[in-house]
């Protein structure tokens, strides 16, 4: 289709879809209203299982199946990106070029911030059941933190602390542990992902039963998975080049 034809088709369609949205929105409960049926049930359920962070309770206890699917999506796309960004037959890995000049202050900041972000990430993972955050958020913080090394200008340094094979294993172990805990739920309490561990007391670090453990599994998986995901893009950018180019 021509550029104009395409836009015409789109505007007719999108105009109607916009009208559909508008019609539906005016029949929805008004923004900020007090009627939230699922909320009422979820809060009661979270309190019953001693989980102070209701979002974590929904994520790992009440609707753990969603999170299991979500973790599988993450794994599938990490594996998928690895497959798609592998060096093709005509390509080979190039030795990384020497980094350019980096301001020493940037370098220092990068190195100094690394342990801080890692600690914050770990804290976010461990307290997921009592404060905002959890395995996913903490894992993301850790993965971002590691890449501060790259910002600090040292791809070799990043490569040293990031043996990809180990991270691949880490992400897989995290994913398998989530599934395994789910199956343990079947064995211990006849239903998948059942919260069968002692639940401790409300608001404590050791409360919420399996939520705590599942958070850890997800933290491991997400942290490792995100690192591997970015690693493949970095590798594509830095060290993969056509064989012909390498010969020069």
């Amino acid at each position, binding site marked *: 289709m021509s*550029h104009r034809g*395409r*836009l015409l088709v*789109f505007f007719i369609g*999108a105009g109607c*879809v*916009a009208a559909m*949205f*508008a019609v539906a*929105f*005016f029949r*929805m409960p*008004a*923004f*900020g*209203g*007090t009627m*939230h049926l*699922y*909320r*009422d049930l*979820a*809060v009661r359920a*979270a*309190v019953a299982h001693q989980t*102070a*962070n*209701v*979002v974590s*309770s*929904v*994520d790992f206890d009440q*609707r753990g199946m*969603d*999170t299991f*699917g*979500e973790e599988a*999506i*993450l794994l*599938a*796309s*990490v594996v*998928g*990106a690895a497959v*798609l*960004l592998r060096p*093709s037959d005509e390509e080979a890995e190039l030795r990384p070029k020497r980094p350019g000049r980096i301001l020493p202050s940037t370098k220092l900041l990068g190195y100094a911030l690394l342990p801080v972000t890692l600690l914050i990430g770990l804290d976010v993972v461990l307290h997921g059941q*009592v*404060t*905002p955050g959890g395995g*996913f958020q903490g894992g993301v913080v850790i993965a971002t933190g590691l890449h501060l090394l790259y910002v600090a200008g040292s791809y070799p340094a990043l490569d040293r602390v990031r043996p990809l094979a180990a991270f691949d294993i880490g992400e897989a172990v995290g994913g398998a542990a989530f599934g395994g805990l789910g199956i343990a739920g079947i064995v211990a309490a006849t239903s998948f992902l059942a919260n069968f561990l002692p639940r401790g007391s*409300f*608001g404590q670090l050791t409360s919420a039963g399996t939520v705590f453990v599942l958070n850890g599994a997800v933290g491991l998986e997400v942290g490792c998975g995100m690192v591997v*995901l970015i690693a*493949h*893009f970095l590798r*594509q950018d830095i060290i993969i080049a056509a064989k012909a180019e390498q010969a020069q």
Partner: protein
Amino acid sequence: MTVYAYFVAAWLMLVGAYGIVRSRNLVHAVVSLAVCQSGTYVLLLAVGYQHGALAPVFGSTIKPSRHVVDPVVQAMTLTDIVVSATVTALLLALAVQVSKRQGTVDPDELTALKG
């Protein structure tokens, strides 16, 4: 205000789709898709919001009550964000390979699949 948040969500979805339609670069199209998806985050969270209510995280200071915003939509949005990140990663990887194989990322110049 009663429906403004919903309309912002719909706007983001439609504007993202418009971005894909008129895109001249696959990376731009993938980013537009991410904007389109962010409309669903806004819609979900807007649906679960309650005026004056607190975040659904209880603690020593906040006693369990029902006066919190809907935690379920937040859990759904979290999943949605993961989906967004992973789908974006896969599509970007594909875009990188398209550029290698076909020498361009302009949808108007891609000719491998026709008819």
